[in-house]
Each structure stands twice: as C-alpha cells, then as structure tokens.
C-alpha cells in the first residue's frame, strides 16, 4: 500500500448532481498521484474551528484526473456532509489519503459494479479506470427515488460508461433493485458498494451464481489510518477488523 499524505486541497468546482448530492472537484496532486479505485480519503476542515465536520469524514475517491484533480460525490446526510457539500470554489479542504485497499480487478473477467445510493462513488473511478484500460465494465446503479439519482450525464462524462439505472419507485431507469434482472452469463467479477442490506443481497447473489464479489463497507471512522480501532467490522472468523486499513474493500467471504 502507498503511504497516505496529508494535504490541503483547493476546491476547483462544485455542482449539484441530485437533490441532496454534490460533485466536488479538488486540486490535490499529491494524493491523486497515488490513488487507486476503491480507496478513500478523510475529508475535513482542519483544526481551525469545531463546527461539524470536526472529525474528518470518509469519502470514496470518485475520480482522479491526470492534472491532479480529485472528484468526490458528497450526499448530505447530517451536519458534516451538509457543511462539506456547501463548499465553494477557492475553499480549502484538509485531505488525508489515499487510504485503504483498492478493488482488485482480475484481468480475465468483465466487471459488474453494483452501486446503491452513494455507493456509486467508488465505481465512478472504477469505471473511468477500467475504460482507460479498455476493459469491459458495467455500472448498475440504484436509488430509492428518481430525485436522488446522480446526474446520469455526469456519470457518462466521468466514466464513459452508460449506467444501468434502477429506482425503487420506477421514476427513473428500470423499476427495481440493482440485483434484479442482471445478465451474469459472462461470469463477471462483482463489486458492490451500498447499504448493508444491499451488500447482503449481493453476497447471496454471488453465492448463488458462484461469482467472486468484493464489497466496499461503510463504518464510522476516527483516524482513517489504523490507529484508533474505531472502524471495525466483523470478520468471517468472528473478529473485529479495521475497515480503514484492512478495507474498505473486502472479499465478501472475509466478512461475517
């Protein structure tokens, strides 16, 4: 694993990509240089004041450009993401990264990304990278309602991939879940990121079809670098393991 860097990054551009979701581009060449798809950063505002996010928050790296630019998908969830989503070009964010393990993409299989909600973020980077390497990559992306759907045009621009969109209310894309009606005949490598119940459903699906699955998990984090033991998830062996350094990407079989 590469060594994480602490760096201030200047916000270059922000745009609203759905009702409560923003796409934020930050100039951060030292972190961009090392980033791999599936890795994350801790994004914060530094020690200057104590308003939330006082603790930095984990965000998947959603894009990495050759010019040193990083892209983040930020959905407003609580006070911390509300403040982060409201940054303006020129503002500085304190960034620690790249952190954690990336997806590992076998050369011999097509890739199917199963994205639930903000779980889309890492797959923007996966998609863009895989396309660069001319690999076969599909992004299946689900939201509960249409108003939460991350601007499909922006997904295409970032990744070059046409997302296979599903909403539970059917208001955009196909009605249903990301695990419904998938064509898995080409024995793809499955990658999944999203809420816990969705990850469990993906694990069932992978098991049923005998397909390899890597999942990216979300747990509250303190340090992001393995010191605080704050971010544990239960391993298949019944132990608490750190999702910031052992994960956030795990082989689904490693987890309970």
């Amino acid at each position: 694993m590469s060594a994480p860097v602490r760096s201030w990054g200047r916000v270059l551009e922000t745009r609203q990509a759905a009702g409560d979701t923003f796409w934020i581009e930050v100039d951060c060449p030292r972190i961009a240089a090392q980033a791999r798809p599936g890795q994350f950063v801790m994004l914060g505002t530094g020690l200057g004041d104590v308003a939330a996010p006082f603790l930095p928050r984990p965000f998947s790296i959603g894009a990495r450009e050759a010019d040193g630019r990083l892209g983040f998908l930020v959905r407003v969830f609580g006070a911390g993401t509300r403040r982060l989503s409201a940054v303006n070009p020129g503002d500085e964010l304190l960034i620690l990264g790249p952190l954690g393990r990336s997806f590992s993409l076998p050369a011999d299989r097509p890739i199917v990304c199963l994205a639930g909600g903000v779980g889309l973020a890492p797959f923007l980077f996966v998609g863009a990278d895989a396309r660069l390497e001319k690999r076969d990559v599909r992004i299946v992306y689900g939201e509960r309602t249409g108003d939460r759907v991350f601007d499909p045009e922006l997904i295409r621009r970032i990744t070059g991939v046409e997302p296979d969109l599903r909403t539970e209310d059917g208001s955009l894309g196909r009605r249903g879940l990301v695990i419904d009606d998938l064509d898995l005949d080409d024995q793809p490598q499955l990658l999944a990121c999203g809420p816990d119940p969705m990850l469990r459903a993906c694990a069932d699906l992978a098991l049923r079809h005998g397909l390899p699955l890597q999942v990216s998990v979300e747990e509250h984090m303190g340090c992001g670098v393995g010191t605080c033991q704050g971010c544990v998830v239960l391993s298949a062996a019944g132990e608490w393991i750190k999702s910031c350094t052992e994960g956030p990407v795990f082989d689904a079989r490693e987890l309970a």
Partner: protein
Amino acid sequence: MTDLSQHLLGASFQSPVLLASGTCGYGEEYANLIPLDEIGGLVTKAVSLEPRPGNPPHRVAETPGGMINAIGLQNVGLDRFRSEKLPWLRNNLRAARVLINVVGHSAEDYGAVVSGLDSDDGFLGYEINVSCPNVKDGTLFGVDQQALSALVAGLRALTERPLVVKLTPNVPDIGVYARICEEAGADGLSTINTFPGMLIDVEGRRPVLGNVSGGVSGPAILPMGVYLTWRAAAAVSIPVMGIGGIRSGSDALQYILAGASLVQVGTALFVDPSAPVQVQAGIAEYMERHGIARVADLVGALTIPERE
C-alpha cells in the same frame, strides 16, 4: 532558538508534546504522517494481559465540539505487544519517549503486564490507566480510593521505571486521588481521560455506540481538563501531564500554565495529523515572543488574582 525540552521522570523530553494513548496506536500507523522522533513522545494504546476483542460498532462518533468513543480497549495483549509492537518503537524512536498505557481487570493483571514488560527495551515507563469509561470495570480503580492506593503501591514494588497514573475526571475532588497516587509511589499523573457520555440515534431510538455509552474527548472538554490539571498539580509535587482537547500551542499553554509539565494531544490527531507539530510550534512561538528560555519557567506560572 527556543529550548522546548523538559526534564522529568528521570529522562529528558525534547518537547513537552506527546501523543495521547489510544489515539496513536503503537506509533507505527502514524509513522508516515507524523515525524514521531521530533516530538516529545507518545503513549501507546492500552496493553492488557490478554488480547481484548473490544466493543461492537459504532465505536466512534462526533459530538458537539468533540467526539465520543467506545473502543473497549481492543488490543493485541501483552505477548503480541512485546513481539510485534514494541520492536518497532525500539527500532524507530531515538529521541521521542515512549510510555506504555497499561490496563487490567485486577491488580494482578496490571502487575503481570508491568512485570512482563519491565525487562524489555524501547520505552521509558508506564501510564497506568485506571480511568477508561468504555469497559465495565474501567474506572473501578480510578474512583475507589483504597483500591487505587493498593494498585499503585503494588506496581511500585514491581518496577523502578517511571509510573504515571492516568486519572478519571469523574470524581468530586481530583486532588484527593492525585495525592493518593503520589503517596503510593507514583512518579507522575496524567489528567484527564475521557468523560462518560452517550449519544442517541433519535430516528432509530437506540444508542449510536455499540457499547451504549462511551468517553467524550476533544475541544469540548478543554476547560474541564485545564481545571482538573490545575487542581491535581496543586495537590501534589510530582509532575502532571495535561490532556484534553488540545489542538494549538495556546491550548497546550493553558495546561502548562495550570501546572502541567507535559501535554498530550489526542483527538486533534484525527482532525489533522500535523496537530502535534503545530502545537509544538505554537509553544515555541509564544516562548520566543515572551522571551521565555525554558518550558519549565511556564509550568504553573499562573497569576491567581487576590480576592478581598
């Protein structure tokens, strides 16, 4: 150049700034981000006799102006600490001092950890944690005066190394506990550990933390920490390490003026790993601006106004 060094616990510290237990792991994890050998030192994550699995998640969350944690002292246990963690500290830290934070379920447990470590190299002494609010028996020794006295006296008999006791904020008069430790043979005190607290997920109507309650740290507790450090330092003549919410040189100086000989930076590391270096630089800048030669000249140098 300002001299930031401090001499106490039979050793010299190149700066009064250490990293607080539980927030810097066993050092190694922060090695790429913090110039560990350029600060005063660090206190390891708690070490217990047996490995501890720790609490279920969530283990951390933000609170107004701070954070709450209930890690549950998850640690690798004495044996693996000696074989896997201590060698890194021994091999990588030359100037920075290492204290090992020790916990136990019983006085025997504490004793076994101290005895098990005492002949090893690579550390200066112990910080005895009698004040963890996140495990069932965590503050037992910290609030029971007889048990505390017996614990410290017992450990004193086991080691010649510096023995620092980390006190709980959770008592009516911390001075009483400070004196008990001093009389039982402690070489120093650390004030303070986290405050017991609880966060509730109102939508889910359940506690946010897997352990239900946890310990509150960060800037929110700064004024409490300064007060308790002042009270503890006034009660004893052994040195005190000030802890709680420090994120700048000026915060650290509040503790030092209140009587702390050293300070520890904890939660601020998570916000910015450069915090200890910033704190150090802030202290140096202040000393230069005020023409103060040695940190020792600032320790307890608070003027308390006369009251009619």
